[in-house]
């Protein structure tokens, strides 16, 4: 328990330091977030056109609109970009210096993740606000704070899930020379299976069983679905259960693989 509290304290300190450091690049974050909402807006316009010209979708205009307006926010909030960097630290031997420090190398990556997201929020939320305002007449806004609270919980769980998946992929660098192809594959596969390209509700009928239960759904689509509607109370509970289950399972596997990797690690340059 002591180690856990110590790690938490380290993460808190490092996050604060990172925020101070990263806020130098304020302009860059704004431009990054501008790029981040381009795709959801393009998809939003396309699917609204399809609906308006008589396409028979299984979801209505309000669902599609709410989905894509919130999508940019959720993909940002649950994203992780560290796999490539972590793999590089393992391969180049930067891990060595962390092994004699009183906290894990991963603490640094958690701090980096949290601090960048904190800064991105300031750039992204006003942009989402503007898009929301433009489409305010066809947004689904859940009554009461309950759904929003679940939305927040689900985003946190989703972020943890993406982060542990990234640890898993990066840990393969303990045994492989180059994991960049794997990282790229993860990004491409996840973009479709997480619902970041097309809402999973629009996936064909034959793929339903697989699409609804695979882990990537819980990284982006599920939190958005909580607000965009359609989920009944029991589906919500089951979904949250699945999400929590995936987080626990992936965290356990990541922990095992990471520990095995540390044992197999032979520092470069030592």
């Amino acid at each position, binding site marked *: 328990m002591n180690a856990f509290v110590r790690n938490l304290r380290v993460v808190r300190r490092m996050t604060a330091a990172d925020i101070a450091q990263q806020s130098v*690049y304020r*302009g*860059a974050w704004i*431009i*990054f977030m*501008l*790029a*981040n909402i*381009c*795709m959801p807006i*393009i*998809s939003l*316009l*396309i*699917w609204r*056109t*399809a609906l308006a*010209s*008589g*396409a*028979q*979708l299984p979801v209505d205009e309000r669902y599609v609109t709410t989905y894509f307006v919130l999508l940019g926010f959720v993909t940002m909030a649950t994203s992780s970009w560290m796999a490539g960097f972590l793999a590089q630290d393992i391969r180049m031997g930067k891990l060595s210096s962390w092994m004699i420090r009183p906290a894990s190398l991963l603490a640094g990556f958690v701090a980096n993740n949290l601090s960048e997201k904190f800064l991105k929020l300031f750039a992204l939320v006003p942009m989402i606000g503007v898009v929301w305002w433009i489409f305010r007449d066809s947004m689904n806004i859940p009554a009461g704070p309950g759904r929003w609270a679940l939305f927040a919980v689900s985003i946190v769980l989703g972020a943890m899930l993406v982060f542990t998946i990234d640890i898993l992929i990066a840990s393969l660098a303990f045994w492989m020379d180059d994991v960049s*192809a794997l990282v*790229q*594959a993860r990004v*491409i596969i996840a*973009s*479709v299976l997480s619902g970041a*390209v*097309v809402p999973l509700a*629009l*996936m*064909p009928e034959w793929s339903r069983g697989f699409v609804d239960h695979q882990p990537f759904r819980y990284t982006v689509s599920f939190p958005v679905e909580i607000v965009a509607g359609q989920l009944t109370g029991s589906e919500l509970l089951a979904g949250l259960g699945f999400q929590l289950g995936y987080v626990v399972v992936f965290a356990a596997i990541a922990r095992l693989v990471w520990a095995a990797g540390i044992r197999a690690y032979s520092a470069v340059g030592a």
Partner: protein
Amino acid sequence: MSTLDRTWWHKQWRHARLWRRFFAQAVVRETHFRAHFLTTLLVGLVQLGLGIVPTLLLFGFTAEVHGWSRAEVIALVGVFQIVTGLMATFVAPNLNRMTTYLTEGELDGVLLRPVSSQFYLTLRWINVAELTNVASGIAVLVIGLVQADLSPGPGQVVQAVVLVGTGLVLLTAVWSAMSFLAFWLQSVNPIGFVFLNLMEAGRYPLVFFPVAVRTFLTFAFPVAFATTFPVRALAGDLGWGTVALGVGLAVVAMLLVRLVWRRGLLTYSSASS
């Protein structure tokens, strides 16, 4: 006119010969990195396949949208793949380096050479492996045209090729202008992401967007000239007026970018000295 060239034409010819050297060097270089060639090919194919998913899903719910059938949109995805492949081959490797050129002072070395610095910065590096995406784009285009039962005549093919050319020039001009902002902003790497994300709009016909956005995608971010108009030309429902408009816009855009470059260069004060 420098003493190197007797006339303006000699200067252009010298640059064309230089570019041929760049290309030859890039081909030789690629043969040394065969794994890179293979991964580029594989990633390109997977991205092409996944990029077409929204289109296929969309046309699972309806037979046509604003007069566009599924086959025509597939042809358009093919043209999009050709255009993005060409940009990734000839333009992206250069404009992605713009920040380094300016912040590391590499531009100093370029300015000293007996070559147009803007030409050198925009076209020096070539990623030959990305040409595989142009090939797969041509394949998708042909599949789309066959499915749509279109057989364009030579005049229409000329129209389409010219339009793709103007689209490429226009998009390169926009991206260059965005990159040359580095003279004032220091770092422009994120601007490249904005450009690539906006490009995605080119996957869909122009009429799929609201009217205001259509204007934006025709004149401000002219991706319409690169994808929608060429496919409409192949379908035979586009006059030479649009082609002329595209050529005119391309000339104006090149002149404007030239101006931005000149103004930017005036503010450049080297990074190391």
